[in-house]
């Protein structure tokens, strides 16, 4: 089944003891950077990622100005110390690609038409990396955008699924990503009902694809609940939930 390591034992437990549909522990915090307009920090398994949002602000260079909407910029970057072997800090092919998919995953949520002639910059800095850092980055970046008070149609939340042998599993860690048989990062807008990121590698049967995709969405909605908690904690002191606020207002 596996080439090098056995990723799942006979009881269906994975290397870190999780069952096939279990997530790694996730913690989210909003408003961690004082100098950014919005920021968030996520720790997801061994991932430690900080996202910052600056803007809306003036566009430089000026020729990139869009007269009717904001220019959304995203940068995904891995710190040199984020991996075992020092990583060259220059953006790699992989980081440039991930910057692009993060930008495109956030673009449908941000109402860019409300901020004409401006730039909104999203910086995703990976301080420690594990599997699924792009979906963790997207999850943190959307929190940072909400913290910055940019008009958004919905939050964006990501989760990855994959294959170990022929078994669909949720939330791959680094080893499973490298040694496993497939990886599928998915980002969704949970209320709007839109998939904003879907990347796949590996060979899936039709049934497995369906199962992995649906599992990613289900887990994404679970993480969306954590996003809500983090924002509530930041802005309402963690006490009143949204429903209570609604009651109080009526």
């Amino acid at each position, binding site marked *: 089944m596996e080439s090098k390591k056995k990723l799942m034992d006979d009881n269906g437990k994975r290397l870190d003891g999780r069952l096939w549909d279990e997530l790694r522990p996730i913690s989210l915090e909003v408003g961690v950077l004082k100098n950014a307009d919005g920021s968030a920090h996520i720790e997801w398994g061994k991932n430690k990622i900080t996202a910052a949002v600056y*803007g809306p602000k003036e566009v430089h260079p000026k020729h990139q100005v869009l007269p009717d909407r904001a220019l959304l910029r995203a940068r995904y970057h891995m710190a040199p110390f984020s991996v075992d072997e020092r990583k060259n800090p220059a953006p790699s092919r992989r980081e440039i690609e991930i910057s692009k998919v993060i930008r495109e995953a956030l673009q449908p949520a941000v*109402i860019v038409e409300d901020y004409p002639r401006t730039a909104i910059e999203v910086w995703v800095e990976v301080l420690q990396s594990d599997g699924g850092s792009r979906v963790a980055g997207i999850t943190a970046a959307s929190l940072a955008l909400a913290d910055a008070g940019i008009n958004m*149609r919905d939050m964006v939340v990501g989760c990855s699924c994959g294959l170990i042998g022929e078994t669909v599993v949720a939330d791959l860690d680094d080893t499973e990503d490298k040694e496993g048989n497939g990886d599928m990062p998915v980002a969704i807008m949970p209320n709007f009902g839109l998939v904003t990121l879907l990347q796949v590698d590996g060979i899936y049967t039709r049934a497995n694809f369906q199962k992995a995709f649906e599992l990613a969405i289900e887990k994404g909605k679970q993480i969306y609940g954590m996003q809500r908690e983090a*924002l509530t904690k930041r802005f309402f002191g963690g006490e009143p939930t*949204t429903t209570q606020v609604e009651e109080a*207002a009526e």
Partner: protein
Amino acid sequence: MIPGDVIARGNHQYGGYIEKRGDEYIALRVGLAEVGRDGVKLNPMTGPYMPRAEDEVIGKVVDLNGFGWVVDINSCFDGFLPASFVFGREFSPSTHDLSSKFKVGDIIGARIESYERSRDPQLSIRGQGYGKVESGEIAKISPTKVPRLIGRRGAMINMLSEKTGCDIRVGQNGVVVVNGPPEGIVKVLKTIKMIEEEAHAADLMTKIEEYLGGATGGE
């Protein structure tokens, strides 16, 4: 409410930071929702200052050219105050010296004359109380919390200036100028910080009143 939440369903009037999708009213910002007789409202907790016509703002002159002043109004757009609005229609760059009126670095109170999506906001100082701000301590509050600082029909700001003996001027862009006795100014600045942090509290007014009352009693 967080972005994407459904605030209400049905048919209502609705304010800013809300999008209507089918019969659902969706929040676009983190904020507190109000559903009442006058429709659906969302009071955002965070966000940048976006200029609106008729807003009173306080800004800093950052540049001047032959035709007017460029003013930083704490927004992603710079305000422009045309010289003809200050000197009148007979203004000509050759006869009038712009720096005699406002210099770079001056703080001015102004009104947003017009703002369109395609152009930077235009300012005007026509009217009572506008123009150069001569003295005072400058503070900032996030623009979305300005309504909280002012309170219902100015209740909060009136109480604050009464209790501290300060003259407080609030720009819609979140810039505040405070004049008065030094102890009063310190108290106002602390209160502004408090409002910033506890803007979501339902009993903010009582809390602030208590704080101010306590502070006077303690001295």
